[in-house]
Every structure is written in structure tokens, then in C-alpha cells.
């Protein structure tokens, strides 16, 4: 694993430029945050295909829907809190219901937004986007995966939501691994517990695996970059092979990755499960690293959750028929 930190936002902007070179149908809309979302890279290269809609997120979503209905492939960017919160109904009714090919790429998801505090820290965005029928929800864990997710979304026919963090991240994979919407990828193999993680928390999960290895615990870490549609087969297989599960996400405990994985387990393979997430509370101002500690989104918290899951697995009575 390379420890060099790369900006997923900058990778997003560069990917947009490459997509713009490949297709004249690619258009990009932003709402006065282009220097922060890095859509400004596209704006500089293709000024005629960039639309700064001003501080008007609802209008931005509707405009993108109209462009998609006229054959364009719009990418729409803002911070996660605004583009999912303020325009949820526009996304549902103007984008998803008519099946518009609008790609919403939000930056600044989670508490690591940092000092701007609770008002700007989206902890519910995955939940509200996941609840919309036909919406695809992607949360890449590094710069390469960001590029892959953005490219996949561009050519995927239907609405997508991609959540990026403000923090720069190391690379997850040494060598390029193919990316497909709806398919999870095993970053680290192991037998005692599976940690399903997304975004920044994938890196915390890998650190947790190192902590657990000291206790001779073999940990599997799975990159669930597609939160919806969730990779059901992979969840069932991992539960079968490791017997217990931990989920880790920089999101509220309600409605995010934990629920997406838990819904599959409840239906198909009940097993001990622990969730590492924000515990149904709002964020606050602070340094990103301090905030991750404050909200217990740390390798230590994931390792503790893993030990609890393993202990429950050991204590568990076999289910009927097992």
C-alpha cells in the first residue's frame, strides 16, 4: 500500500477533463463550489460545457435533468450536505423518476470536513440517496477508485450518486483492479471476521487488521464502494467464510453501509454483526483527526468491534438446521 496521499477530489476533476475529451455530451454543473469540488479543471478546459449555476442547488439539479432529457451526460457537484439535503425531492422527482442519466458527485462527505462543523458535515447523505428507487450509490476509497467510479457512472444509464471526502487518501491497491458497479472487492483476505468498509474508513479498517493480527486474528477487509446495489453474493459468501461481520463508515449509523449489509444478512445469513459509524448524532468543528477520534471512527474502534463480533460468534448457539 502506497502511503502517498492523493486527493480524490482532484482526481475527480481530472477524470472529468478526460471524459470531456472523449465525449462532447459530457457537461458539468456546479453551484459556486467549483474550486473546492475541482470541477474548475473541467471549466478551464471546456468553458462552453461548464455551467456555474450560482448558489442554487435546486435549480442546478433541475437544469441537469433537462440537459439529460435533451441527450447530455451531466455531472453535478456540490458538497454532500447541500446536494443531497436541499435537493432530495428534485433528485427524486426530476432526476430519478424519469430515469435521467444525471451523475451527482458530492465532495465533503462525513465528519472529516473538519472545522466548518456540523452544518457542513453530511452524515445522512448515503441513507437519503439509497432510499430513492433506481439510484446507484458509490463511495470510492482512493483516487484510483474515484476515477474508476466516475468513469463507470458516466457510461451507466441512470442516476448515480458518488460521495467523496475532503481528506486526501493513500492508494488501496498496489496494482490496478477492475471496477464494476455492484461488485465489492476484497482488499485484504482473512478468515476470522469480515470488515465491510467504504471511503476513508477502508484505510482505518486496514489499520485495524494490523492491530488484530497482533492477537493472531485473521481479518478480511472488503471494499464496498457500491453501497447500492449492494453486492449480496459477496456479503453471503463472506458471512459463510468468516462467520461474523463489522461495517465501518463515516456516516450516521442509520441508513448507510451498515444497514445495506445488515439487510442482506437479516434476510439471507443472520450472523453476529457490529457497526462502526456515527451514533445518531450531529458532527462538530475540529481537526479531522480529532473528530475521527471523538466519534470513535478509528482503527482501535474497528478492532474492538471485530473482537466483539468474534466473541459473539464463539458464544452463539447454532441456528436450527445448522
Amino acid at each position: 500500500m502506497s502511503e502517498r496521499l492523493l486527493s480524490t477530489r482532484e482526481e475527480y476533476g481530472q477524470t472529468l477533463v478526460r471524459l470531456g475529451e472523449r465525449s462532447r455530451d459530457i457537461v458539468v454543473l456546479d453551484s459556486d463550489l467549483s474550486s473546492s469540488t475541482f470541477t474548475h479543471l473541467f471549466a478551464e478546459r471546456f468553458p462552453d460545457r461548464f455551467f456555474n449555476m450560482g448558489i442554487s442547488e435546486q435549480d442546478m439539479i433541475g437544469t441537469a435533468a433537462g440537459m439529460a432529457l435533451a441527450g447530455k451526460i451531466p455531472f453535478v457537484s456540490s458538497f454532500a450536505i447541500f446536494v443531497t439535503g436541499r435537493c432530495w425531492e428534485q433528485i427524486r422527482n426530476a432526476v430519478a423518476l424519469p430515469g435521467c442519466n444525471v451523475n451527482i458527485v458530492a465532495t465533503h462527505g462525513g465528519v472529516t470536513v473538519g472545522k466548518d462543523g456540523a452544518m457542513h458535515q453530511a452524515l445522512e447523505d448515503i441513507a437519503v440517496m439509497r432510499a430513492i428507487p433506481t439510484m446507484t450509490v458509490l463511495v470510492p476509497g482512493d483516487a484510483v477508485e474515484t476515477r474508476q467510479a466516475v468513469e463507470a457512472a458516466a457510461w451507466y444509464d441512470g442516476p448515480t450518486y458518488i460521495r467523496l471526502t475532503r481528506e486526501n487518501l493513500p492508494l488501496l491497491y498496489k496494482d490496478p483492479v477492475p471496477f464494476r458497479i455492484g461488485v465489492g472487492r476484497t482488499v485484504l483476505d482473512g478468515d476470522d471476521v469480515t470488515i465491510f468498509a467504504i471511503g476513508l474508513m477502508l484505510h482505518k479498517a486496514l489499520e485495524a487488521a494490523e492491530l488484530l493480527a497482533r492477537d493472531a486474528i485473521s481479518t478480511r477487509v472488503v471494499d464496498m464502494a457500491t453501497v447500492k446495489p449492494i453486492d449480496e453474493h459477496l456479503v453471503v459468501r463472506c458471512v459463510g467464510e468468516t462467520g461474523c461481520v463489522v461495517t465501518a463508515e463515516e456516516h450516521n449509523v442509520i441508513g448507510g453501509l451498515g444497514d445495506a449489509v445488515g439487510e442482506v444478512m437479516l434476510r439471507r445469513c443472520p450472523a453476529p454483526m457490529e457497526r462502526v459509524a456515527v451514533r445518531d448524532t450531529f458532527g462538530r468543528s475540529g481537526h479531522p483527526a480529532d473528530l475521527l477520534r471523538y466519534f470513535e471512527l478509528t482503527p482501535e474502534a474497528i478492532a474492538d468491534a471485530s473482537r466483539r463480533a468474534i466473541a459473539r460468534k464463539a458464544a452463539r448457539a447454532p441456528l436450527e438446521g445448522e
Partner: protein
Amino acid sequence: MTRGPAHEVAPQELAEIARGLRVLLLRTIHHARSGHTGSAMSCIDILTCLYFREMHHTPYNAEWPQRDRMVLSKGHASAALYVALHQAGYVTRAELRQMRQLESILQGNPDSRRCPGVEASTGSLGQGLSIGHGMALALRGGVDGGEEPRVYVVLGDGELQEGQIWEAAMSAGHRGTANLCAIIDANGLQLDGAVRDIKNVEPLAAKLEAFGWRALDVSGHDFAALCGALDAARGERERPTAIIARTVMGKGVSFMENAIGWHSRAPDAHQLAEALAELDKAKQPAGERAGTR
């Protein structure tokens, strides 16, 4: 390059088309036992001008890229759109009779995935102007070397209380999107009462002009005036145009006119018969119509 109107149709001829659409509208809503009768009646004349004079469109090839588009932002008036689409050739009589039923292409609010000729899914008020503006921007300068399509957005006056409308108005004014034309079906009524009592949206022309639009205030039931405004809008090169069409909710049937109770009510058999008799009386003699062409 801009096209002229698709068809030269005399105002008297348009009036007769609109009268026929009102008959069909009332029958359709009566059959469905639900629908927004008053709201649909008030915008029938506007839709008649658009679909049978102004807009270049090809019902036999609904996806023709160079077509002009109409977005019915006041989606609850869907029945008016559906009868116009029927008259134009997009929707069959059998499909009209299925309006608002399970599996129907004619949903309670227009659904662009299901119904040919419906350009956008609308009905959540306040969103159509952004959608229409997005289309106009995407089509600006023409498609595949063809002439520049125009986009029409039909809005209610009540829905102008939505903030997103003014975001979109500011966007289109700022960008000078001249192939965009908003037509406000200003019937002065909304579900709970008069627009001026609930939250006054006037003065509309002054507001829209301040947002960078050309604003034209006309009678929404005067075909010559409506066509003149559409001509003026087509000639505009620098700004989007808003046509403030002063209309009457329930127009065409005296007991429905300006009666707020008819906003979202379907006529029963007796009311339907009474309304159709009145519309029949309004029919112009064929000879007189021919003479005026």
C-alpha cells in the same frame, strides 16, 4: 437560425380546436372520475396555440432531436396535455380512457418515461422552469447542425411561490437563454384560494423584467394575442421571454369559471351533460369559420 411557426392557423380555427379539446377533456376526466378540471381548462388555449400552430414536432417520430419541447410545469393539469397529445396523434382514444388507471401511460401527473410526447415528468410544482432551461441550454445553437429548437414551459401562477422558480428565472435571465419561453397560466387561483390573498406573486412583468426577461402580458384566451406574443418571443435574440397569460380557471363552462371548487374536481354525469351542452352552443358555424381563414 430560428424557425417560424410550424403551421399558419387562423385564430378562429385555433378556437375551434380548443373547444373540441375542452369537450374531450371533460369526457376524459369524467370517465377517470378524477382530475384537475379547472386548472386544465384554463391552459387549454395556451396548449392549443403551442401544439397546433407554434411547435415543430412530429408525432410519428416523437424523439426527433430537432423538435420543439413543451414542459408542463403545472403537471396537475395533465389532462389538458393528454387531450392535446391525443389530438396531435401521440395518444390514442383508448389510452385516454385509461387515464389515471394502473398500467396507463397517462399517469396522474405526466411521466416522460411512459408517454410519448411528454418531455418531462412534472407535477412537483416549481421544478419545470429549471428542467426547461436545462433543455434550452442543451439545445442552444441547434442539434446536429439543424435549426435551434425552442423550449416552452407552461407554469401556474400559484407555483411561482416556489423559490426554485426564481432561481431558474435568475439563471435564464443571466445566461440570456433566448430559446426559452415561459408561459404563465395566470388564472389567479390556487388550491386554498386566490393567489393574491395567499401569497401575492404580482407584479409579474416587473419582477421578470428585473430578472432579465422580456415580459408580455396578454389575455390567455385571445388566440390572436397569444400568437402575437409567441411570435414576439421567437423574434427575441438576447433574452428569454415570459408570456403572462391572463386566464380564467375552468374557462369555457360558466359554472366552472373562477370557481375554486373545480380546481381538482371531476364532473358527474349531470354536470358533464350541462357543460357539453354549453360547449356545443359555443360551436362556430362551419361556413363562418371557413370565411375567416
